[in-house]
């Protein structure tokens, strides 16, 4: 949402206050308003100057004060904070013994009574990125302190943790170490002081999917026309709606021999056995149903239904083969055109599906089909 705006009082339902840390009543400076924020910095073995991949199996360690990139972080913190300790761990050790690594690191850093954890930046290193995300989340939950991680927005750690922690986008180049640490420090200081945190684009962190109510200066129609005029003039404008990003997928190799292929039928048109025993949702799906079809030669209108809030299901209900072509597939199986029809139909009601839920449903179905030896899928979509 854009529009210069006066914020509502933060609501417990919508975001910034949803972090457990924010509910902590102890404030920085309880022992004197001007005291420095106590900062712990997390690094991997490489940035902690222990070694490269040969030291990636090293376990968690802690040292007083700063190491390596900590110098630039301390500079960015200036008078506001002090790096009291640096914790570090080999990337492989963290990945292979995550629980143990977190337990040890949290235990050791607690002794320093930190107010803020800064982790990374990890740039595009996946293991390091995950470690930064995991340790920040654990510090928030277990120590009740604020935390900021840094990594590239495409780092797998970003997709895993961006909803739960603040992640500053470092980009992929290590040349951006200093400016990234400056943004991490500035955000960390604000968080530690419980100051209001602005929007992702102004503070430099990755959007966390939090929605916040705001008062806008103009009604939606006027804002839309303003945007359109700006677009026509070639001026800059910012959409108020972020379109979802769809991850690309690698094409499966083509089927070389249909006669030996195992083909499965899948649908997002909401096919269910009569009575919808798995109670799948007609829209906004969170799950799918698995319908056994061994020995079934055609979808009988009295035994199958379509449950879907996004289209008129009357025509498919009169003959469910119009939604899932089971009768035809049996014919082709009998004729030997295909090797075999898979013995289950997977079905969900795909209306208004949240991308995240749809992705999970798709992955789950794909895994089951792969495990069952299915080689090709026909997905009928409404």
């Amino acid at each position, binding site marked *: 949402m854009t529009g210069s705006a006066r914020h509502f009082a933060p609501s417990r339902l919508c975001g910034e206050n949803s972090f457990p840390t924010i509910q902590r009543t102890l404030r920085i400076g309880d022992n004197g308003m001007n005291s420095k924020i106590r900062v712990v910095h997390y690094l991997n073995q490489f940035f902690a100057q222990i070694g490269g991949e040969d030291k990636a199996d090293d376990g968690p360690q802690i040292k007083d004060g700063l190491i390596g990139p900590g110098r630039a972080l301390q500079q960015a913190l200036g008078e506001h904070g002090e790096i009291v300790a640096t914790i570090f761990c080999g990337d492989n050790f963290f990945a292979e013994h995550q629980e143990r690594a977190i337990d040890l690191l949290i235990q050791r850093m607690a002794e320093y009574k930190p107010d803020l954890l800064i982790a990374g930046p990890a740039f595009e290193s996946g293991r390091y990125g995950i470690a930064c995300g995991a340790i920040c989340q654990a510090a928030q939950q277990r120590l009740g302190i604020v935390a900021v991680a840094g990594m590239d927005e495409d780092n797998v750690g970003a997709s895993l943790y961006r909803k739960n922690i603040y992640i500053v986008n470092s980009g992929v180049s290590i040349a951006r170490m200093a400016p990234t640490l400056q943004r991490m420090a500035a955000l960390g200081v604000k968080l530690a002081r419980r100051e209001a945190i602005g929007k992702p684009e102004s503070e430099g962190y990755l959007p966390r999917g939090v929605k916040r109510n705001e008062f806008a200066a103009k009604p939606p129609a006027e804002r839309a026309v303003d945007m359109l005029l700006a677009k026509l003039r070639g001026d800059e404008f910012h959409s108020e709606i972020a379109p979802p990003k*769809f991850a690309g997928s690698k094409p499966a190799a083509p089927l070389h021999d249909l006669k030996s292929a195992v083909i499965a039928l899948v649908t997002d048109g909401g096919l269910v056995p009569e009575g919808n025993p798995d109670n799948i949702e007609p829209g906004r799906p969170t799950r799918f149903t698995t319908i056994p079809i061994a020995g079934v030669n055609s979808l009988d209108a009295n035994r199958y239904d379509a449950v879907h809030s996004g*289209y008129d299901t009357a025509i498919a209900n009169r003959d469910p083969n119009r*939604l899932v072509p089971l009768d*035809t597939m049996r014919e082709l199986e009998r004729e030997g055109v295909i090797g075999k029809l898979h013995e289950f139909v997977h079905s969900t009601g795909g209306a208004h599906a949240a991308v995240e839920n749809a992705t999970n449903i798709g992955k789950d179905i794909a895994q089951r089909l792969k495990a069952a030896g299915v080689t090709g899928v026909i997905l009928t*979509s409404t």
Partner: protein
Amino acid sequence: MIPVAKEVGSLRAIASGGIVSPTGNPELPPDKEKEYRRQLVLRALQTLQQEV
């Protein structure tokens, strides 16, 4: 709905019989509709055999 399928990353997609009856056509008499469905499914199977 092909543009939607492509937008969300589908790599092999063919036009169906319509939103309310992807593998059917209620306007056709039953035997013709079955033949229509068969041709559609055969086209889908062909698409599975194509390099993307």
